[in-house]
């Protein structure tokens, strides 16, 4: 099942963060109970009763009391501050590009072999995932192996975006001109929902992506086929699909790459047939795919993809195109 909640963590980073959230919640519930109790008592006890006209004693203050309610909050804050600072440093130790020392450590460390490095590029309004060590460019779906540390380096090509997979890790911003990083791990296989959390334009709310945690063997297969797809995988089967490839090459390939052929303007299509959604949010089916190609702007305003009407791609050609992209798979 797809998972989109910080309250249901599926990895160590989100767990650490939830622990902090719960710790602070317990301390704060204590504070709330104390204040609410005094508040309720005071309102009930000292409300004006009918006929009461006495003038209350004009108290100036009380040193001892004021000392107590200065010191107790300080102690409570220390209980929160110490674990927060510790977790903060643990989270920052990602081995990302912004941290030169750790980068060297990882390069030299033998364990570094186990780290998967992914550059997550935010674009208006889609995500590009580049695996620099594996020579992979993937769009929208970020595949990761289970039980492996993943370092995500965050970049942006236009405006600021923010990379958030609530069930695996809190967010970090994709800032143009700056490379941030975070790390995450997914012990269990699963599909984890990701979202852009920094206002980035009209279709900000539709800038969703998925993190797919698969077992390491499956990941290796995926990685190999993504980097250098077998002929078997890329060759379309059947007459219609072959025709579809022609349509694709005439219309789509300038922006959408399959394997190492094609442009980088839009999401990579090498494993398009394995997506579960189109454009990050539409259910994957033929109807939605055609609607999307015919008029992307009405579904996701201000995105870069041009519309292809019947004069550019006829209905027959469209059927062929759909047949072809449905077959673009790397995991079977």
């Amino acid at each position, binding site marked *: 099942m797809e998972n989109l909640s910080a309250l249901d963590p599926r990895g160590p980073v989100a767990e650490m963060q939830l622990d902090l959230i719960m710790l602070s919640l317990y301390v704060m519930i204590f504070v709330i109970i104390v204040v*609410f109790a005094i508040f309720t008592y005071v309102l009930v006890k000292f409300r004006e009763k009918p006929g009461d006209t006495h003038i209350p004693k004009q108290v100036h203050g009380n040193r001892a009391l004021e000392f107590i309610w200065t010191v107790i909050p300080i102690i409570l804050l220390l209980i929160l501050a110490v674990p927060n600072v510790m977790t903060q440093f643990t989270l920052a130790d990602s081995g990302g590009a912004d941290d030169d020392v750790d980068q060297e450590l990882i390069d030299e460390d033998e364990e570094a072999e186990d780290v998967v490095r992914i550059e997550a590029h935010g674009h208006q309004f889609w995500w590009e995932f580049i695996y620099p060590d594996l020579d992979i460019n993937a769009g929208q779906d970020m595949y990761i192996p289970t039980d492996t540390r993943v370092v995500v380096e965050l970049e942006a090509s236009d405006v600021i975006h923010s990379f958030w997979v609530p069930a695996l890790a809190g967010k970090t911003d994709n800032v143009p001109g700056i490379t941030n990083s975070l790390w995450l791990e997914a012990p269990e296989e699963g599909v984890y929902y990701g979202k852009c959390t920094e*206002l980035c334009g009209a279709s900000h709310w539709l800038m969703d992506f998925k993190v797919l945690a698969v077992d390491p063997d499956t990941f290796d297969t995926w990685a190999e086929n993504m980097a250098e797809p077998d002929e078997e995988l890329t060759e379309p089967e059947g007459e219609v699909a072959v025709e579809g490839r022609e349509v694709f090459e005439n219309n789509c390939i300038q922006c959408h790459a399959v394997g190492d052929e094609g442009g980088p303007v839009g999401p990579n299509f090498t494993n398009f047939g394995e997506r579960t959604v189109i454009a990050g949010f539409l259910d994957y089916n033929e109807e939605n795919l055609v609607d999307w190609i015919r008029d992307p702007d009405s579904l996701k305003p201000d995105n870069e993809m041009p519309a292809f009407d019947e004069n550019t791609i006829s209905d027959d050609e469209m059927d062929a195109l759909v047949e072809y992209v449905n077959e673009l798979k790397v995991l079977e």
Partner: protein
Amino acid sequence: MSNSTAASKKSVLYDWLTTVDHKKIGIMYFFGGLFFFTIAGIEAMLMRIQLMFPEMGFVGEQTFNELLTMHGTTMLFLAAMPLFFAFMNFVVPLQIGARDVAFPFINSLGLWLFIFGGIILNISWMTGGGPDAGWTAYTPLSTTSGGHGVDYYVMGLQVAGAGTLMSAINFLVTIVNMRAPGMSMMRMPLFTWTTFVTSMLILFAFPALTIGLLLIMLDRIFGGAFFDVALGGNVVIYQHLFWIFGHPEVYILILPAFGIFSEVIPTFAKKRLFGYTAMVFATMIIGFLGFMVWAHHMFTVGMGPVANAIFAVATMAIAVPTGIKIFNWLLTLWGGRIKFTTANLFALAFIPSFVLGGVTGVQLAMSAADYQFHDTYFVVAHFHYVIIGGSVLGIFSATFYWWPKMFGYRLSETLGKWFFWLFLIGFHLTFFVQHFLGLMGMPRRVGSYLDGQGLNEMNFISSMGAFLMGFAFILLVINVLVSRKNTDNVQDPWDGRTLEWATTSPVQEYNFAQTPLVRDLDAFWYEKMEGDGRMKAAEPLDDIHMPNGSILPIFISLGFSILAFGVIYSQWWLMIVGGVFMFSMMFIRSIKEDHGYHIPVSEIKKEKGEG
């Protein structure tokens, strides 16, 4: 020598347009603020309709972004701050026993700059769409946004911001120089104290905003490259500039409310404010720390663990002085005789509401956990809890509390209590569930959300709460209209403690016939308990010198606005026309000798009923 009847020869409209009387200016701030509060409230309603159901098509994505930008900008700059300025203007000179503020002309100029700035900002709706980059206007989204929306945002805020800055300086000078004899700093009412600290915050915070907006303007209109990464710019610098202003702004919005509660609670508990000195110092510490924590808005921007840890701990520290205040209010109530008037209900409801907003503030301060909270509905819930639970409840409390003094009639308590309960229930209904929405994966500033992600029910509840708040607000408007007959018992209806209750309602032009002599904190209460219930005079009855009104503030603001439109549409000739007009008006102001006028003793005696 002319006399006070000079003004009444002119039409009522001209009198209000040219007035430099702090009370009339306060009233105009009030209605200006209320007008923009209504507009921003309608914008909020439109957003809550759009979010009532998943994937609603009520307003488009682009319009939604414009609505969220204008809702935030209008509420903060054109509603909450002017409403506080209304009470500061009206009440502070009275509370310190002064006849007016130090610079009446500048006071008027500040008002008109705010009104013109607000109009400029809202004209954007009619000229192709409002600003759409959020009230924070983060670069490069704001510098690359199409149309003129963001230009309106930049210039509207520059015009309004100039007014805010000069009003703040005016309050500082007034409070330092114009206190009545005997009113030392440590005998000032808490509302005057918070006005003083708030003005200090404005003085240091607003220039950072001015610069941030200026850089956006240079980038957008004159091809600057401060925030263009391709040309070597840095987009994060803007966030620092914005939050160096933006975080103190949060305290600019809450400290005056703290001041209001510190007036209302002692009055209706019939007790002196508990721990006055601690309250004053807590206010100053909050103001100071407010400048030290801006980067907690930027934990996810990649500042590194050291900066995050420092700003996290600094932010948590603010909870200490805030806690001191909460407990001091509770202890003020302790042992008192609490009267549940509408004004006091708003003040009392503030305590639990604000504590709920405050504790989430501490949670957000935890930088490592903030990676989950940041930019989600959890944050939306948090800041609405502190701004509505703090500032807005404060504004409503002040409205019911000072209304008789400002307008000479009492608002209906029955309607007021209906308004209070519906508004309070609506408020908690709207925002409590949003904490959970955020943690369940709903980012803020989203034009909609997908079906089947578990977000439907709580969004629906939230929208219902918002409609309830909107409905409650209508009751306030009705209350204002139908209560006009309650003109009895308006001079000191609440058995007040401070100087504003010692003068007439509505207050005469010169505030006090004779400057009062202050003998203790809660000066008026002291005279009621220890004296004969009337303020002692600190001066003999004499002619009172008053400043003349002037139309120039409107003309100066008009010139500045024309210049602003020149900038928005990159028209040099228009900029020059506006600039020349503005500076000519300022020149006239500088060379024209105006000695004001005197109100003769005979007339003062007549008004006192002694003549």
